[in-house]
């Protein structure tokens, strides 16, 4: 077993894990943060997307030990002070989720992308989601939600 200490959603969390433990199972099983889902075993679906030092990563493709000493952000930490993040709010208002299984990964991927590109075109949003699969929405309302959130967020900055 290996000891890891990771700052998750701003809080220092520690656990002993097998060296082969993936970050996603450290989050889900060691920390009980089950908001991050697992949809495949080939790093294809993106349901497990989280932030590692602010960048989106697929947590099924990172070992827990690789996150040692670093900062991880998950869906559970997305809202602040009881207020939904503009992306969460936009997904709600635009029906950007149906079964909700891909949703945490979509939100984390989109949050990281909007930091990179705060004013994207529809095509850019679609390209940015290449690593995140949804089977319910046909992506239509996910894309709409992200564009809506981008405009809300830029409005808030202005």
């Amino acid at each position, binding site marked *: 077993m290996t000891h890891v200490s990771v700052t998750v959603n701003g809080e220092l969390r520690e656990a002993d894990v097998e060296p082969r433990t993936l970050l996603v199972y450290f989050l889900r099983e060691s920390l009980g943060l*089950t*908001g991050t889902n697992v949809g495949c*075993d080939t790093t294809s*679906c993106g349901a497990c997307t989280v932030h590692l030092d602010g960048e989106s990563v697929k947590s099924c493709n990172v070992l827990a030990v690789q996150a040692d000493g670093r900062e991880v952000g998950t*869906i559970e930490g997305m809202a602040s002070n009881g207020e939904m993040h503009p992306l969460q709010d936009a997904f709600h208002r635009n029906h950007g989720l149906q079964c*909700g299984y891909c949703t945490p990964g979509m939100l984390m991927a989109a949050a990281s992308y909007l930091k990179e590109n705060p004013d994207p075109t529809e*095509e850019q949003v679609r390209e940015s989601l290449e690593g995140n699969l949804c089977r319910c929405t*046909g992506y*239509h309302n996910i894309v709409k939600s992200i564009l809506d959130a981008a405009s809300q967020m830029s409005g808030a900055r202005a």
Partner: protein
Amino acid sequence: MAVAERYVGKPVLRKEDPEMLAGQARFTENLSAPGMVWMSVVRSPFAHARVGAIDTSAAEGMDGVVAVFTAADLESEWGGPLPFVWPITEDIKVPVHWPLTKDKARFQGDGVAVVVAETRGQAEDAAEAVKVDWEPLDAVLDLEEAAKDGVVVHEDLGTNVVVHWSHGGGGDQSLFDTADVIVKERYLGPRLIPNAIEPRACLAQSVPAMGEFTLITTTQIPHIARVTLGGTCNIPESKLRIIAPDVGGGFGSKLNVYAEEALVLALARRLQRPVKWVETRSENYLATIHGRGVLHDVEVAATNEGKILGFRVKELADMGAYYQLLTPGIPELGGWVYMGPYDVQAYWYEFTGIVTNATPTDAYRGAGRPEATYVLERAVDALARRIGKDPAEVRRMSLMAPFAEAKTSIMGLNLDSGNYPAAFERALELAGYEELRKEQRARRESGDGRQLGIGISSYIEMCGLAPSNILGALRYAAGGWDACAVQCLPDGKVVLKIGTSPHGQGHVTTWAQIASDTLGVTPDDVEVLHGDTSVAPLGMDTYGSRSVSVGATALHLALEKIKDKARVLAAHELEVAEDDLEFEAGSFHVKGAPDRARTIMDLAVSAWHAHALPAGFEPNLEATAVWDPPNFTWPAGTHVCIVEVDTETGATDIQRYVAVDDCGVVINPMIVDGQVHGGVAQGIAEALFEEARYDEQGNLMTSSMTQYLIPAASEMPSFELDRTETPSTTNPLGVKGIGEAGTIASPPAVVNAVIDAVSHLGVTHIDKPASPERVWKAIQAATGGSGGSRSERGGASGSPPRASGGAS
């Protein structure tokens, strides 16, 4: 007095969303129990192999391993095989399907043993250490080859040809000999992998003191699972509780009862510990049902002018290695819509079901109806090409005239209502059809490297499953009713318990909207409970676009009962006759005296404290209703797909996608649109990308998401939607259902568009999925290029080969 706000028909935001957006969803994989152990299944790496000695000793000695069981070890657990509930003919041959196979494996992924360990990793590691003495056998995958019985999958059945079903035909069959034009086509519908993004998972617990069991599982059908798993596992239905918590998509793949569900129940009983299993995606591809897997021969009879006179369809359907819950019933479900929305004079449909060494097939979004619609709409375009007419014109002159009352169709069942020309014309208008044709002509004339294609698909679907008497006549084991109980609580809130079981469709919001309008409350006041057989014990679950037309009608009837009961109490409290009361938006008032009023929720308090009730009035304001629909519902519509095909590379780019659907009365337009978006996307995937492929030995070649091409956002267009609204005559709400429409309509719209883009080059046929390679080869073959002979199966020439075996 103020009239409460009405919610039906409005895009009310989903009550389901906040917890899901916060990462607080209760998916099965997120749940655990004290003392829980994990199961892993030892699966056959071969598609067809005898099972020799199984050596479990190495696995048993590994860290954390609790037990290893083979099929023989668990035989005493079973009250019967895994459930199969739709023996569609009297002489159907039914393969025996146990949770673990003992004698031989019949598809890659067939389970032969299980390992139970303290952690998931330990269970999976130990499963790999179980040594099975396999004797590989020749496998059979091709339908026509399987029908020859050179390799027999189930020796006890003596043949792979297990069922032949015919609709029996309708109208004047001689038209298929005498019509001006007979177009014969052969279409392949490859196997598809449903790919709900949540893999399957289940967790079984026993309560020894009570002899009870609880199974939490990723299912669309907790009620059907309870009665059937009770039989398989020898547990009285009254002692088995099934819970479907949040379920992460289904698309039919969770409309089933699986070996793993039976296994965790049996192991929880054997070990007296909670047992959990979570599917890997690789397992999902092997051990969760596939969809489609069909080969159709179709004949269209028509006049020289293009009026469609009839369809005659013969189908071979791949059952896979065993039947799952409904397997041979899936083609039959399509068997009732092979007239499409057209006013035909002749109808014939038959299919032959064949077992192969592949994953069992079963319901995948649309279940039989997408297969039917694909065949019809491809064939209508082929007819148009044959007679040199615009495909829109052929459809326009053949669509049934509008009808507002139910009428008997040529296939024998009653259509509830329909206005097919309205949706058709609206779709063409929205697409700008004539302009598109002009643009297409210009590009053809200029020899543009990117050619424009326009594909149309008009469809009708059979939804609202289903009238129980018809299900009985079709030899389905259960009924098609559903049930709802509504309780008005004294704190002003409402609890609604319903037998439908959603997995992304937004039922909680939709049902709350309906209840709010009658009860004069807001959707936030309505708690919708579902998916737990102890909480909502009566129901038939969610599939076949049935939930709104059957489940919500039960809700509507329960609300009517509440209203009737509340009226008695209102009259009593207001000291007037019941006839002197008017009801509006949750409130009764005395005619001519709107201030003398009692709201239903006021009356719920009176009915609860029961201090001053009229004689004989039963305390509490609650009611239960069960609705058995008198007919199916028949949504319909027209979709238009506009593509660009690169004639150099064969690549297809969807430029626009227009969908005009008619699902009757709409409760929540936002949710209805979302269902269309998702359905269309799955159909586009079927048309352009997805195909489960096996090699000749029966190895699944598309065994992960890296080989099986699920489209991402960048491969999808935005969708342009509109609706027509023709109320159903089947139910008092006028609703028809929308869950499957997109998947039914879109595959032929897309493939027709691709062929249309290159038809001027001589291309008349491209199989699904219309990959760049297939399109390029078709162009090369048509233009005499070097790239492709028509070596792939399919094509428009010659007389159709007969289904072998049982077809007659």
